[in-house]
């Protein structure tokens, strides 16, 4: 299932503004890669280029290559809708469909992609909710609105919704920043389990979190406000947090700026 992502020479723009410049990196399958860096350094923008969500923003455009195994996501004839099915995404604020039940939320992606029998759907919904460590909490209220859950539960519901369509890659954009510490812990544990099956990329503002959950960490920075964000370095998490090769990374991690 999990696929490798290979980015080379990627630039992303908002209108004429260059938001991130010349990024190249490899994201290993079945691992967690964390993106850290100060606000505005373009890490979320970069994340959104990985499933072609960036171009949804008005004026957003991308050049460069993003290889998913052997297919360039920005190649000619690639259907962005199909890309997003392969590369799932979890957002900063939990966003279950407010008018749908818990069950329908999880089944939403499946229903788009074809016809399933009721029993098939039931199985996948249950498996996904179990996968998101949510099943025990919601199995008695599958038909209640998803917006009635707590914030942490909603976020796990969103994760269940994303993994229900069996993507190859799971992108997470600061998935815990709107949650309390206990829910955060639950999500972090979940990420540890999910990496057995998926390639996971997570953007986080919380360096302890990056240290806790990720195998590799990428540090992004920008020279000044109005300048494009750049990838400073990417390495094993342990190394980034103990002995980074670039001074700026060390400054950031030890709290000297940002």
């Amino acid at each position, binding site marked *: 299932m999990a696929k490798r992502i290979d980015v080379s020479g990627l630039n992303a723009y908002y209108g004429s503004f260059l938001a991130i410049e010349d990024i190249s990196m490899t994201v290993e399958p079945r691992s967690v890669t964390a993106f850290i860096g100060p606000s505005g350094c373009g890490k979320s923008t970069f994340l959104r280029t990985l499933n072609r969500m960036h171009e949804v923003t008005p004026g957003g455009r991308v050049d460069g290559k993003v290889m998913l195994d052997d297919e360039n*996501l920005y190649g000619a004839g690639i259907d962005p*809708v*199909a890309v997003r099915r392969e590369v799932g995404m979890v957002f900063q604020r939990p966003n279950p469909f407010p008018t749908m039940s818990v069950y329908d939320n999880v089944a939403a992606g499946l229903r*788009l992609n074809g016809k399933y029998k009721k029993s098939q759907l039931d199985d996948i919904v249950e498996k996904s909710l179990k996968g998101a460590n949510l099943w025990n909490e919601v199995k008695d209220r599958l038909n209640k609105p998803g917006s009635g859950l707590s914030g942490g539960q909603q976020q796990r519901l969103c994760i269940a919704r994303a993994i229900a369509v069996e993507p190859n890659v799971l992108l997470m954009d600061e998935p815990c920043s709107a949650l309390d510490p206990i829910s955060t812990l639950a999500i972090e544990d979940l990420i540890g389990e999910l990496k057995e099956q998926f390639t996971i990329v997570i953007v986080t503002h919380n360096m302890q979190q990056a240290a806790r959950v990720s195998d590799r960490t990428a540090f992004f920075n920008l020279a000044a406000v109005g300048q494009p964000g750049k990838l400073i370095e990417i390495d094993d998490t342990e190394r980034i947090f103990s002995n980074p090769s670039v001074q700026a990374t060390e400054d950031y991690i030890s709290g000297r700026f940002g």
Partner: protein
Amino acid sequence: MSNATLSAKRSSLRGATLPKWFPWAVAAGSLALGYGISAAAGLDSDIQWALIAAVLFVVGSYAVSAKIEGSRQAKDRTATSLVWVAFLLAVTPLASLLWETVERGVKVLDVFFLTHSMGVVADAEPGGGIYHAMLGTLEQVGLAALISVPVGVLTAIYLVEYGRGRLAKAVTFFVDVMTGIPSIVAGLFILSLWVLILKMGPSGFAGSLALSILMIPVVVRSTEEMLKLVPNELREASLALGVPKWRTILKVVLPTSIGGIITGVMLAIARITGETAPVLLLVWGTDFINANPFQDPQESLPMYIYLQFGAGSDASHDRAWAAALTLIAFIMILNLVARGIARWKAPKTGR
């Protein structure tokens, strides 16, 4: 995951996608075909061939897309074409409305037309003008504004600055109800009060009263919105300086929101300027200049249009169009100026 059957079914990232120009090509094709069909079948109405073309466009793009791109994409395309068709369906008649009014209106619209009345002109003859109608409209609308603006603004101040409790709730509710009163019902009310009970004759002022009923709720609503935009800190800052509440309202709250209030009032005026039904019931109309809104029938622009239309001759229709053009121009100018003021005076709110 072990669900091998499911993953096997999944298509690759590379879907068959139709080129960007595809919708345009289908659109052009359907227009040509629609026109061709109606020409061949001897259909004589624009509406018909436009409808044929629209149906061809929607069905055509669905069929091609379903064949090449699959049913999900085809549905997406159908939605897109339906939305475009909806847009064109609505825009065409609306554009025609504006176009016809301008084209037919300019025919007799000149300085003479604006400065003369219909005094000695028979309905079927060319000549005459709308001076008496413009005069009447200005007076009636002006009087209506004189009544509605103070009542409306004060009511809004009451609701926003003082209103708690049951009275405020009742007022809010009835303002809502008033917003929905059909103009003919407002006219009937004043008719039964003014003409039938007080035994007064038709006059511009009676029309103004009915117009006020239509205008007050609009003024209340828009002023309310504007007053609510004034941040509470501003009020508190003034009150904390020991300024009494009523002076705070007059010197701080109103000046801050005055731009928006003026905009609202102008939009309300624009709305009642075009009202015909109450004027028809209460002002009656005349071909002569009557500058006194308190006695005897007056004319107004919308009623002039109605009466000239009803007269039924070519010359009177020309006059009706010219008056319609004048009326639209007046209302549009009011609208544009009002929007200009709104943009210029807009309180800076972070979005």
